[in-house]
């Protein structure tokens, strides 16, 4: 399946091409050839950018950025994967080619801390007055943050004794 597309892509770029099932293809590529690949594949009919995701591989010290592309004419989905370093996460923006990428990159900048050069709108999107490390990274513990800022009521033995007294009074044993 999809042999012509494989020959086209592997003729121009050093990429790894894998067919998972009908209508799903996975392509892995080096980070310097991502923008030329996106311009080329847009001219072949893949005009719909569904989403951009980011995965934090903390053991290998890398971030992985995944682009999901769909073609309305051929009905194929391409998952484009690339890796960048975790200590200095800087990458280039794709919003010149796909204007809808501006919102997705703005969210990845806020949640993971990746800086997309050329994106003019990297201002706070969902969080307000945030003063800690970017929250979707794997070394952030949400339970510790919640316990130090918000108080809850622990259900101790004292609370259970009160509840049992009320239940006995109402006859609901």
């Amino acid at each position, binding site marked *: 399946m999809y042999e012509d597309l494989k020959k086209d892509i592997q003729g121009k770029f050093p990429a790894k091409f894998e067919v998972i099932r009908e209508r799903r293809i996975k392509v892995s590529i080096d980070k310097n050839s991502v923008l030329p690949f996106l311009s080329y594949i847009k001219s072949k009919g893949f005009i719909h950018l569904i989403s951009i995701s980011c995965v934090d591989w903390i053991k290998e010290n890398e971030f992985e950025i995944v682009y999901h592309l769909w073609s309305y004419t051929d009905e194929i989905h391409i998952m484009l994967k690339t890796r960048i370093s975790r200590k200095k996460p800087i990458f280039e923006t794709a919003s010149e080619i796909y204007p809808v990428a501006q919102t997705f990159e703005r969210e990845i900048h806020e949640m993971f801390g990746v800086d997309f050069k050329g994106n003019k709108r990297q201002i706070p999107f969902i969080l307000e*007055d945030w003063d800690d490390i970017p929250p979707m990274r794997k070394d952030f513990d*949400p339970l510790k*943050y*919640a316990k130090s800022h918000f*108080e*809850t009521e622990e259900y101790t033995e004292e609370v259970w004794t009160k509840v049992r007294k009320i239940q006995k009074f109402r006859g609901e044993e």
Partner: protein
Amino acid sequence: MSGIGKTSRIKSLWVTYYVTGCGGIELLPVITSRFDAERFGIITSATPRQSDVLVVSGFLTTKTLRRIIRTYEQMPDPKYVVALGACTINGGIYWDSYSTADKLELYIPVDVYIAGCMPRPESIFMGFAHLMAMIKGDKADGWKRYHENYKWYKKNQDKALGNSKKWRVRDV
């Protein structure tokens, strides 16, 4: 409060229209024609400056909690608060999230809790009937507690929501 003042307050409770979370999806059937709330005198009002009751329906994120406190302080006395759902009692399903506050009682005073996730429209009517009985018996005094213990409420608000000078005077 005299007898006729209490009766007229019970028969027309106006609710501020503020859909703060998931619970708002079961407020829509309550105000339309299958479970009609207008026969009890309960209608929605557009601004908080002309209403009696604030219904906090659902979970409380920090960004919304700042606006809830400002809306509560804009309502004139006497005012009542009804808390809908399990997330206002002790955190609910988002107990370990970094962005939701757990207990509503620490930030503004609450008169009636309605349990459930979502509560059915019949439960919401039972909650309002309980509030009407409390007003008749002079027990719904959350607004007096807020004036007397203001320092304690302000300390809790500052611990959870950050420096209060920034969000109390912000325009948005």
